[in-house]
């Protein structure tokens, strides 16, 4: 088995759906990082069978809304002095700005470029969002 060192001070992005780790890595722009980052693919998971995870040797700000939208099953562990000091369970954010773009060609956001695209969560279970301007439904793929 491949062994990757533990994190001393930083974060572990855990329970990423297997195969999606590289997308999270790119989403957080970790290719540009000047600190240690490990992307682990197909790690063993009791819950998921296999999973991807990312270890970051740095306490960085994460856009939790963005990550929650990408996959609400992801968990974030914050590590200080090699100990988990907090665990964040992601969920779909209630309101998102400028992450989802409205696909309705009749929506006002299609012609007024300065407006923020804004969506409101309709239902955590069905993962559906509603454009606050035109009511267009956007479904997050799980």
């Amino acid at each position: 088995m491949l062994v990757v060192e533990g994190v001393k001070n930083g974060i572990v992005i855990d329970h990423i759906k297997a195969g999606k780790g590289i997308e999270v890595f790119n989403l957080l722009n970790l290719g540009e990082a000047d600190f240690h980052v490990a992307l682990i693919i197909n790690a063993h998971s009791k819950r998921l069978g296999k999973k991807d995870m990312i270890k970051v040797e740095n306490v960085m700000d994460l856009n939790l809304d963005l990550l929650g939208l990408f996959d609400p099953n992801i968990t974030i562990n914050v590590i200080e002095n090699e100990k988990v000091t907090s665990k964040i369970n992601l969920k779909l954010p209630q309101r998102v700005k400028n992450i989802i773009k409205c696909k309705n060609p009749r929506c006002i956001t299609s012609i007024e470029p300065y407006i923020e695209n804004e969506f409101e969560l309709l239902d955590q279970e069905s993962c559906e969002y509603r454009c606050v301007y035109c009511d267009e439904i956007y479904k997050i793929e799980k």
Partner: protein
Amino acid sequence: MLKGKHLIDLNEFTTDEVDEILGLAEKMVNNPLDYCEIAKGRILATLFFEPSTRTRLSFEAAMLRLGGQIIGFSSPDASSTSKGESLSDTLRTVAAYADIIAMRHPKEGAPRLGAKFVDAPIINAGDGGHQHPTQTLTDMLTIKSKKGTVSGLTIGVCGDLKFGRTVHSLIKAFSRYPGNRFILISPQELKIPQYIKTQVLEKGNIEFLETEKIDEVMGELDILYMTRVQKERFFNEEDYIRLKDSYILDRDKMAMAKEDMIVLHPLPRVNEISYEVDEDERACYFKQVEYGMYARMALIAKLLGVDK
């Protein structure tokens, strides 16, 4: 308290607030001269980024009958939009001149955007195929006057249910009153949008039926709300031509309906209601036009806070 509020979607007003507007409108129908000076010194701007004679004239007549004055334009060519000005800049400019704004725009959500930028009350006078709340107030006032209630009714809506914004607003508004059920009559291609079905009807446990055949349901209806298949909502002319004559209400169909059913239509009609139906006492669409003005008078008075 309605003073200073925007009307973007009628469901953002409580049913008590809606009833308050309808109550005032009924008083205005009975005694219009009692209200002929209450908006003196106030200005309504009618900003029509999409042409509409009927709704614009209804708003303007409403304000004039309240003793107020009007400014505005009736097509985007007459505004700075044609010079490339953003919607928010146009609205902020107009808000410096007017006390209240009625706007129609071809893009959905345009009035919601406007409400973010200006304090003067904005009234959505129609945004694309999305919402048309003052038409709904009109429909509610007509139904309340003719049927004596806005509850416990079987409401048939027929025609273009996909792009017909009046239909979307109507269903949302009547879903809030107990005992109403809907029969949605349309061709497959023009069925009601999914969000109305899931977020309004299913979520509210409202009884509804979708059908393509008007003849089979005529006898059940208390209200028949006819709509036009709107050419301007189609990207493809072929689809429009194929669907435009899907439903035509004539004397034979009226013979299948209840004696006290009423027919409404937001107008203009093309050919979806035969002229022979106009003579039927149950045809209320021209009365509806008149009620529209009173509904807008009451709304303007409430939003300006001059109704006392």
